[in-house]
């Protein structure tokens, strides 16, 4: 997972170069980040500080909010939407989805109810994002 990535090795030093589109505003700067062998980052192409911040985060610790649905027993809907209460590391998304796929809730549920605590060892909870009543006819 990830944008365009190229490995660029030279004899003296190993460096990694990556290009990404900044999404902090509609301008969409094409930012080039070069990671030197010593770990320092060279960031070019951004037109503001937010771009540099974005690029650094994307390279060192990219995180995302994950949204999905969980099966709901006896609800007016078959599934209920959920989200991670905070962003989680990109690398944990697949594990998080596995946990979501296995889970099941019982109606009624309210926005903010914790559906899964500490998903995939991220310390982040999966919470319900919609009020769904029990289906009395079910």
């Amino acid at each position, binding site marked *: *997972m*990830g*944008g365009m990535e190229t490995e660029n090795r030279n004899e003296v030093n190993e460096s990694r170069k990556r290009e*990404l*589109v900044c*999404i902090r505003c*509609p*301008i*969409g700067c094409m930012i080039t980040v070069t990671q030197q062998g010593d770990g320092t980052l060279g960031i070019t192409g951004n*037109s503001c500080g937010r771009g540099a911040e974005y690029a650094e985060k994307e390279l060192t610790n990219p995180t*995302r*909010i*994950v*949204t*999905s*649905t969980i*099966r709901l027993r006896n609800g*007016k*809907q*078959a*599934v209920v*939407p959920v*989200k991670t209460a905070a962003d989680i590391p*990109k690398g944990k*998304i697949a594990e998080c*989805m596995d946990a979501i796929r296995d889970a099941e809730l019982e109606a009624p549920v309210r*926005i903010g109810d914790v559906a899964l605590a500490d998903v995939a060892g991220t310390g982040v909870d999966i919470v319900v*994002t*919609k*009020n769904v009543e029990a289906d009395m006819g079910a």
Partner: protein
Amino acid sequence: MKKKAEIVIVGGGPAGLAAAAAAEEAGVKSEDILIIERDGELGGILNQCIHNGFGLHTFKEELTGPEYAERYAEKVRQAGIPYLLQTMAVDIRAEGRDGNDAGKIKYVTAMNKNDGLFTVEAQAVILAMGCRERPRGALNIPGYRPAGIYSAGTAQRYVNIEGRMPGKEAVILGSGDIGLIMARRMTLEGAKVKLVAELMPYSGGLKRNIVQCLDDYGIPLKLSHTVVGIHGKERVEGVTIAEVDGNRKPIAGTEEYISCDTLLLSCGLLPENELSAGLGVALNPVTSGPVVNESLETNVEGVFACGNVLHVHDLVDYVSEEAGNAGRNAAEYVLGTGKREAASAAIGIRPGPGVRYTVPSLLRLGHMQEEQVIRFRVSDVYRDAALAVYFDDIPVMKVNKKVMAPGEMEQIKLKKRKLEEYPELEQIRIAVERAVPPKA
């Protein structure tokens, strides 16, 4: 069934809810308002938009669609505004056209299982029916007509409301936001999304969605490509895509077969104006939405429009804001509190080069607030350009824009006192022009 209301709001999605709440806040008694919603719950399409990214402007936090909808639904419930669910408005008429009350009374006919077929009499109507997706037919894609072809929104409903998956391997035509969101959604739920093809040389979706929905999952976006054939007689078995030239015509020899069992279409949204047209509301051929003035009032007096029925928005926050204005204006109309100053001629607002349309397209100084927001979309991707405003032929404003794209709505603000300096003004024109060189 109550047969009378001051304001009937057709549609209980984000626009209808915000309009209702604003009308009530502006002094209309809650019981004098009625929301008619065709779905089984309030919130409209937001209920199936379970991804995050809503409400950054309005609530300064990132909500999911259902959470955003719930904030407004709760407002409406708290205010005690009546609403009818699973109710379809089937006809709106304005009557008494010839008498003193010409067109003043509106009759909204609707039906549902509990009340049957009924008509509600209203002083004002707020059109908030939203939009629909452009179907395959409108694209006239050749090939078979098997199962497995869905508009992105229909697929979204299956996945997010029913917990079902339309297919295992998908190609998405069109890079509108719903298509991009569904690319990620289908992938997370275990499907293989092979690619997103976009007819235009640029995406119609938000940049953030391209990065987080496609790039994150390694889903290719093929710009200037379209689907030229659908294969599979019973269920989709594959599609042929091809590159298109500058006139959007497929280039022979660039065809490529992609096997898949599902084709999702995300090729644009169209305001849903069957009811408006039946009522005699004039529509703008560019937006397919009503022509409105600064009060978001249509050519039919007392009939207002807001949200995606008026023009397709990129962010729901703007829908809520616009709908709030429509609600307040409708309230002023029915309460008679509006500063209906001596009739002032309407100033036309016209899109100039590079601008596709404007909302509103008429401005009456006498009804104008201190500031008026004009929203519009540009017709191409522009870098380092400027938005210019002309009062008749006099250039009055120029704002540099680093980047503008058709996928993102633009706006400019007009000040009343500035307009008052031009008493003879007949037309305001907004155009895309070259950027102003930086001052030395």
